[in-house]
């Protein structure tokens, strides 16, 4: 059963069953197709999406509904078909964080959410053509208390 053989990436153990497959990569990284979704309790609620093909590449992601409960991206059906979504509960939604040394200036890409079919381990970056959502949106208001 080579499929269940344990491997490690940055000290994280995984098997082939944990790999999330991005058939077309993501824009800018089209050649990277195999990723690992990892949750470090210390970084909660943020999660890391590590490239297995190039361990130098990783994305920090977060569930956008935590800070924008009304986030309702309209995706083209073919984007959902690509990851073979049949049941709503299989769909996990994340947005990529662009970190800034000043955490208040960290932004999220609301126009390119990462969608993952957790049951089939298929992922994709959806591309929204929607003026409501920008590629650099603040997660926190500037005046929010510390």
């Amino acid at each position: 059963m080579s499929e269940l053989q344990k491997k490690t990436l940055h000290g994280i153990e995984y098997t082939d069953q944990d790999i999330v497959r991005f058939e077309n990569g993501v824009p800018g990284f089209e050649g990277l197709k195999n990723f690992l979704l990892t949750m470090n309790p210390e970084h909660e609620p943020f999660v890391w999406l590590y490239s297995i093909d190039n361990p130098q590449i990783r994305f920090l992601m977060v569930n956008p509904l935590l800070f924008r409960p009304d986030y309702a991206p309209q995706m083209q059906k073919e984007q959902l078909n690509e990851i073979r979504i049949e049941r709503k509960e299989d769909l996990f939604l994340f947005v990529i964080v662009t970190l800034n040394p000043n955490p208040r200036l960290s932004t999220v890409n609301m126009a390119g959410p990462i969608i993952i079919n957790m049951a089939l381990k298929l992922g994709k970056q959806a591309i929204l053509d929607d003026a409501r959502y920008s590629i650099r949106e603040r997660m926190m208001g500037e005046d929010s208390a510390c």
Partner: protein
Amino acid sequence: MLVLTRKPGESLRIGDDVRITVVEIDGSNIKIGIDAPRSVAIYREEVYQKIKEENQAAVAKTEVDINSLTQLFGKKGPPR
């Protein structure tokens, strides 16, 4: 790049199942119609480019310490 000249109402085909039609020309605006299978996603180039650039920016910044962000954000979401 292959360059072809078309008049309004004329089309061209890419492969067997993609058809692009020049619908209307109004000054510098050109309306283009696309017939393609449902499996083909269609984006405006500049939208795709912006996502690509932001992905590259996000990857470049992953070395920034995230602890200050998680502290500020809290386990259940940001302060409101």
